[in-house]
């Protein structure tokens, strides 16, 4: 698995079998589908092939220098691939001298070569050079795998007393000088040398362990984030497609509503028309009972037409195809008009109607037909839900709109109040609990479905009111207290302030 040059040179490349049963050349390290493919480190097995992959070289160099300072011994650290990772040494004078002698120079070169070729896998190895000095080569094994080596030396074993005969045999040497220079070389007793090697081995192993852990940690961080991101992306895609489908269904529903309403209205118009004609006696006089029946057909037909028109309005508003015919409208006048039309109904239930109009209300830019529809709807509700003897108040006044939200960032700019027209209709009716207030503008929603049967209505009115006012760039507010009454307020922007929103 290692790729260190000297060690592998003579060996043929053999294949590596991987967990998934495939066989790859051993040069390509086998690994399961890698997630942290960016680095050479295998997360699945948390393995490393060599010291060089993770170790902090700066730290390794510092350790070697400190080692050299402490023991005066040269040390070099190599990775599994043979790279020199750290080096702390001082050329011995004896070597400098020997290099000046040709025969000695050749011998020294051979020694250096021999040390470089020494790549033990488990046990320490030693090379003795021509001077009698030794190099100790110590394999670094990490998690049961050789990941590099360090070389200590050359140093003279303290036990050596004589100049080696082989050195003296080289000839052309100044023997006295050789003897002097050899004495100057570091000498270490074997037991001490052994302890020193063991110490360095432990220090490098610890450094490797710490570096490996740091690497794995960062790899895992990245891989976990990626995995989480992928999971979230999948979930988001699922939600998005569900959302798209719902939107499509909603669109289909609106289309269906529009088509059906339209198709219902056409024959209904004939029913109403013919019953009206019958009622007027165009096709001959009717007796009282017949007249009564025809009037009922006419009345119920009108009611049905109203309902269908509401549905059509709603679907137009939902599809955004409702056109507003805006003109300058006096909102106070409009409200008073609506209040007036409620008089007969209010009278039947002995309900008091009060109208209050602020003097000099500005005009608003609105579709008078639609605005009347809105106010009429609210007024009708107010009368409908107010018990006998109650009251309904109509108010038209100017007010200031405070922007919503509690953020005070740049309040001087952002929270500048806007002037608006408030049209409110307040009753002393049954009221609504606070939990219901947020939902009353949803289509087909009624606080209590039994109220549809008791009070009539479709549950469409308020949703149309809200959408129409939205289309005008305004808003509808509701305040209510169960048993005490309800106040609906339609807020319309004063002309010139914000009319860009409407027109849909």
């Amino acid at each position, binding site marked *: *698995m*290692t790729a260190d040059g000297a060690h592998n040179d003579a*060996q043929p*490349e*053999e*294949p*590596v*079998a*991987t*967990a998934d*049963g495939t066989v790859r050349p*051993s040069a390509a390290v*086998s*690994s*399961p*589908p890698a*997630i942290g493919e960016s680095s050479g480190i295998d*997360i*699945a*097995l*948390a*393995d490393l092939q060599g010291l060089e992959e993770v170790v902090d070289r700066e730290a390794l160099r510092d350790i070697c220098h400190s080692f050299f300072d402490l023991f005066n011994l040269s040390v070099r650290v190599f990775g599994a691939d043979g790279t020199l990772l750290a080096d702390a040494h001082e050329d011995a004078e004896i070597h400098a001298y020997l290099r000046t002698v040709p025969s000695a120079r050749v011998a020294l070169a051979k020694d250096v070569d021999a040390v470089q070729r020494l790549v033990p896998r488990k046990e320490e190895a030693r090379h003795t050079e021509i001077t009698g000095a030794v190099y100790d080569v110590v394999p670094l094994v*990490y*998690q*049961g*795998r050789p990941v590099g080596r360090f070389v200590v030396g050359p140093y003279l074993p303290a036990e050596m007393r004589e100049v080696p005969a082989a050195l003296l045999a080289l000839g052309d040497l100044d023997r006295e000088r050789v003897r002097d220079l050899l004495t100057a070389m570091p000498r270490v007793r074997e037991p001490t040398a052994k302890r020193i090697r063991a110490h360095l081995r432990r220090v490098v192993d610890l450094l490797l*362990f710490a570096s*490996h*852990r740091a690497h*794995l*940690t960062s790899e*895992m961080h990245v*891989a*976990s984030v990626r*995995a*989480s991101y992928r*999971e979230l992306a999948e979930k988001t895609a699922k939600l998005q497609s569900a959302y798209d489908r719902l939107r499509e269904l909603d669109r289909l529903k609106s289309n269906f509503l529009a088509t059906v309403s339209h198709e219902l209205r056409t024959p209904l118009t004939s029913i109403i028309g013919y019953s009206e004609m019958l009622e007027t006696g165009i096709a001959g006089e009717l007796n009282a009972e017949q007249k009564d029946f025809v009037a009922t057909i006419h009345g119920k037909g009108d009611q049905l037409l109203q309902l269908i028109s509401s549905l059509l309005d709603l679907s137009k508003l939902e599809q955004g195809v409702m056109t507003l015919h805006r003109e300058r409208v006096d909102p106070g006048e409009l409200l008073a008009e609506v209040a007036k039309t409620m008089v007969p109904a209010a009278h039947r239930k002995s309900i008091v109607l009060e109208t209050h109009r602020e003097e000099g209300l500005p005009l608003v830019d609105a579709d008078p037909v639609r605005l009347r529809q809105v106010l009429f709807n609210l007024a009708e509700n107010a009368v409908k839900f107010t018990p006998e003897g109650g009251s309904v108040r109509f108010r038209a006044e100017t007010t200031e709109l405070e922007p919503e939200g509690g953020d005070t960032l740049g309040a001087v700019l952002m929270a500048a109040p806007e002037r608006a027209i408030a049209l409110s209709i307040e009753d002393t009716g049954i009221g609504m609990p606070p939990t219901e207030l947020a939902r009353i503008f949803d289509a087909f929603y009624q606080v209590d479905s039994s109220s549809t049967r008791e009070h009539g209505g479709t549950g469409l009115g308020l949703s149309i009111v809200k959408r129409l006012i939205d289309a005008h760039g305004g808003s509808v507010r509701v305040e209510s207290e169960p048993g005490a009454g309800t106040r609906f307020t339609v807020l319309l922007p004063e002309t010139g302030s914000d009319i860009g929103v409407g027109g849909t």
Partner: protein
Amino acid sequence: MQLDFKTRELTVKLVYYGPALSGKTTNLQAIHRLVESDVAGRLMTLETRDDRTLFFDLLPLTFEAGSKLQVRFKLFTVPGQVIHNATRRLVLQGADGTAFIADSQLSETKANQQAFLDMQENLRENGIDPASHPLVIQFNKRDLPNVRSAEELERLAKRGKEPVFTAIATRGTGVMETFLGLAELTWRRLDATHQLGEKFDLDADIFLQEVRERLVGGRAAE
């Protein structure tokens, strides 16, 4: 598994899986303590918060078996807390065998079940078929009150096919048995799919005997 013919090196990945706080890390710590020091490497703990594993723990066990086959067992734990699912799946990647560490306390029955389902799901996500994956189950914390009785465990164990062990990991009891049980299952499985015995001239029984001897130095694994 990773196999290198050139260096005659076999690397096997074993994962300790289980619900939060069931004692996965404690198992590794006990193995680290119990096996011969030349076999066990340093126990590496990757990121913890409040003493809970965030990524994984790793214990390498290395020894030579048969005719110089270098065997490297790498024991991993997963983080048990529910939120670390992505990490659990990453750690399970390339697993050759799994020890499921269950908490014996009756109150943890649901957590055990949930973690077991989660393990199967994550194995599948990694392209590993849970049905043929070497798996042992350990019921840990046998020393606590309110645990399922030994008789009941035995009765339930007979209904499943995977070996079931009981343990008190804090004391080291049952930890080596669990590991050796998993090592055996995994070796037999790898042998069947990769003919390891044939390639390295290593009989399964002899190999397992060697594992036992190398790891616990011939001491009875009690």
